């Protein structure tokens, strides 16, 4: 297999990774998924960099990729911390909750209400025998975690 054909394959895979990540980032509303999609785009780019590096026989590209991976790790730490915090505040991972940065007077974007999830526990599910008193959770301390 010639060098350029090999490069082409790598580039195709990198392009696919990037494209899938892009579509995922644009289409999904779950913040973690969006974050993963962004990572996927990053990896697509990294792959193509490695391929070009190999093609040209230049280590610069590989070195850049190592650098990108290191940055991505930091980014992942910060991004996940932010996502956790946002989840802590809103109790949702839906990114459309966070539209506060819009201009005054612009209506909030509503694409489609998320379907209310049915009660997780149907009434006829078997119950454990009550043992002692049922713990009464304090409402204000426990964040609402209905829709993960």
């Amino acid at each position: 297999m010639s060098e350029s054909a090999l490069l082409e394959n790598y580039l195709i895979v990198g392009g696919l990774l990037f494209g899938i990540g892009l579509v995922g980032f644009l289409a999904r509303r779950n913040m973690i998924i969006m974050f993963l999609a962004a990572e996927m785009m990053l990896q697509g780019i990294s792959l193509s960099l490695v391929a070009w590096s190999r093609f040209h026989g230049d280590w610069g590209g590989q070195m850049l990729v190592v650098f990108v991976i290191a940055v991505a790790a930091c980014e992942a730490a910060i991004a996940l911390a932010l996502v956790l915090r946002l989840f802590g505040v809103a109790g949702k991972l839906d990114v459309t909750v966070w539209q506060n940065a819009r201009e005054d007077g612009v209506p909030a974007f509503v694409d489609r209400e998320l379907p209310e999830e049915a009660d997780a526990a149907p009434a006829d599910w078997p119950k454990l025998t009550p043992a002692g008193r049922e713990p009464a959770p304090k409402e204000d301390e426990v964040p609402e975690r209905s829709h993960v």
Partner: protein
Amino acid sequence: MFDPLKIETLTVLIPALPLLAAVLTAALGPAVLKKHSHWPAALAGGISCVLSVLLLFSVRANLPEAAHAGDAAAGEAAGHQASAGFETVVVLWNWAAVKDALPTPAAALPSTDAVGPLDQMLDVQVEVALRSDTLTSIMLAMVTFVSTLVIIYAAGYMHGDRGYWRFFTYVSLFVFSMTMLVSVSNFLLLYVFWEAVGMCSYLLIGFWYEKPEAAAAGKKAFLVNRVGDFGFALGLFLLWTTYGTLNFHDAGGVAGILGETRLSAAAVYVGGGTGLAICLLLLLGACGKSAQFPLHVWLPDAMEGPTPVSALIHAATMVTAGVYMVARCTPLFFASYAEPYVAGGWSIDAPSIVAVVGCFTALLAALIALTETDLKRILAYSTISQLGYMFLGLGVGTLAGVTAGMFHLFTHAFFKALLFLGAGSVMHAMGGVIDIRRFSGLRRLLPITFWTFLIGSLALAGIFPLAGFWSKDAIVAAVADRGHHEGGLYQWLYIIALITACLTAFYTFRALFLTFFGRETIPPEAGEHAHESPPSMTWPLGILAGCAVVVGFYFEWTHGFAEFLIGTPSISYLAERATGPIGEFHMDVAAISTVSAVLGIAVAAFLYLGEQNEVRVLTRLMGPLYRMSHGKFFFDQLYQGLVVWPLAGLAKFSFWIDRWLIDGLVNFCGRLPVWLGSALRNLQTGLIQFYALAMVLGLLVLLVTLIWQNG
């Protein structure tokens, strides 16, 4: 060496003391002096008065013999006669100096031979210079004397007023400004103090500023005076471009307008159109300040101020500033007389216009005073009328006329201040009521006021041997002389002056009879305690009454006034040009004017003593005439229609333009970015996917462009 009696020192001290009093009262009045705020003003006024009298005698002692003997016309060779007078100029400091301000005009003269021909460009030099000559010293003595008495009177009249200290601050400031006005030796400074007395007048008319009429009257006085002052300012510009200086005296190598050099050189005053224009513009200024037609409308309204103010500013001193100025500028007016402006077969000279304006005003104001019912306003119209007399005298264009006008100014100050203070005394007793229909028969209640008021009225009416008789007679005689020699205009003015004399006597005694005679009626505002005024008010009345009796007689007897007055170089200029004998007593004229005055008094007595049935009949008979007089010939309405409304309309129009056109344009510029922004606003959704999409689309556009260009 400091010599307090040197003329220079006196000249500076006289205005300085009232200024000091004004500053003191302003600084200490509200907290320290309080009820004693009149002391600085009274002391300063008193001392200034004594100093003024000293100055008067010093100047008199310094007069050259020729002027003393009243024989200025004869004597040494003509051409160097200006030294017949005496003047001293004290230069305090140089206020402003501008190099090369004006190309030398033709009429500019070098003041000394040493200077040689004038340079190409003249410098502006404004020196703060005070002068003393006979004209100034007479005015100073009169102003400080009346001021002192009025301040003493006001100490009683204004007693208990909330703005006691404020009143005396303003009055001191006024005395300062007025003494400066008559002693400065520069047209520019004259203008400055001209405005300063106007400002004091404004402040004092609106002294009771809570009263809307008083505030409006102050504003009216100020605005009407602006018209006159505008003319005055234009006159100054014209003087500057014509003569190349604004100084009275010789200074900075250039001969002053009234300086010795110019006075002694023959024919260096500009006549013709320019001369006439200068004189008329100055006259316009004088008309504003001295309330002459057509700018007379402010003075009656100015009576809203406290009565001492009416007596001091609006009768005795400030309103005579116009007369003083015209008298001071005698050579300018005489130049216009000597070389009139000829246009289309008419020859127009400034003095005759002065005379016509004065005479017309005298008659007009006298006619309005006939039906006026406010005692102070009667006196105000009478002031306008008497000022008209003074202008008539100045407008005769002879030395006799000028000295007579100044003489009338001098005597009028005493008896008119007296009458106003008397009116104030009546007002004080009547609890602020001044409408003569609402009180009567006060002669037993207010005996001192009555007797002094009677003396003042007799003096105003011109009855022998009181002050007004001599001075008014001098004016009428001067007019008669001129009319006798030339006929025409001045003959008519003479007749009008006589009619006015009759009217004057009539309205004065109408006021007197209605106030002091008849059944005793006291308005309810006076309460139970209608009484004679306190001594601080009656003493000034007595002193002024004494003056009103003796000044005219004294000066006429000694022939002192006119001869003293021609010691002023600018007036002796007129004397040199020999315009007839001065101060001559005309028995026939005196007899006629006395008869007309007595006639006026008799008619007043016939109509207003007793039942007054005839008045009602007469009022009905003279219907339209009565209404004209009662409506003040509708000048206020006329000005309202011709000046105020159009101006208000213009202002409204400008306001509309400003509000809708200019503001609209500015607001449009402000709103434009907002509108543009709001078009793009919907892009800012705050939703992260939109931004991502935008980035992707942007990237696509970039890619497509790249491919396009490379492909």
